[in-house]
């Protein structure tokens, strides 16, 4: 059984004056509803161009309503270059340069793909890792 842990530390000494912020959390990524670690992962590096519309980073091809976790990092150092992150037709948020996100993804239905789009100019390099309960490849064309 594989073991995958994800830890976050959020800190600030001046966001809340007189009350330093220090959040620390760690979780082990398990298969749906179990204490068996996830054993499937898809990770890599890609490049988006601004001319593109939103592209699917990951299709919801596995078993619906399962435990999956998504990490995406916009590695651009240009502050004007951000990525629009969405699930199907809903925009989740804008991922600025040198920013990352980590979230669960239950693949609630077959339309619940993770999609990404580059703004505002040039190309953006991104890194990603998707830890999955099930892994179904796209059908051959």
């Amino acid at each position, binding site marked *: 059984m594989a*073991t995958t842990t994800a830890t976050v530390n959020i800190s600030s000494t001046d966001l809340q004056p007189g009350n330093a912020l220090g959040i620390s959390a760690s979780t082990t990524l398990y298969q749906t509803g179990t204490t068996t670690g996830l054993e499937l992962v898809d990770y890599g590096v890609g490049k988006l161009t601004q001319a593109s519309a939103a592209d699917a980073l990951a299709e919801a091809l596995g078993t*619906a*309503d399962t435990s999956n976790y998504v990490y995406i*990092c916009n590695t651009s150092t240009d502050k004007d270059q951000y990525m629009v992150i969405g699930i*199907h*037709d809903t925009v989740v948020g804008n991922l600025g340069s040198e920013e990352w996100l*980590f*979230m*669960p993804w239950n693949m609630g239905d077959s339309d619940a793909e993770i999609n990404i789009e580059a703004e505002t100019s040039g190309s953006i390099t991104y890194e990603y890792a998707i830890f999955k309960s099930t892994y179904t490849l796209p059908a051959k064309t």
Partner: protein
Amino acid sequence: MATTSATITINSDITSSPLRISKTMLLKKFTSTDGIEETTGLRSKKFNATAAVEIISNTEGTADKASKVYIRNTGSSSVEFFYVALNNSAAASDSTETIGKLYGGDWMLIPWIATASTSHDICVAPSTTDEMTLEYMVFQE
């Protein structure tokens, strides 16, 4: 200008060559190098019903500005969870749009577009009537 940093560390032995991700980001204003200056502070709320509940209203952010949302299920159950969604009816599948499931100990940190619409309220739905607790915090311009 405040300085708030968030560091993620992911360690995994899913692949034959250990996977390690470590990335620190500064929480910045939209297309800026200046740090985010506002926050709701860390909230903690107990739930003991399975009905979907709005935990963060879109009015707490500003559309097209940089907002980040941190949410953590403080429990330890690998069976019970919260659905987290960008809609008013967090459920297994919803077209507008369920994000995923946070089991005990799971956390997420995402950018949030905070569009001035109920489609971007953040809602949760517990999987059980047994008491569970969420911690959550919004960082915003």
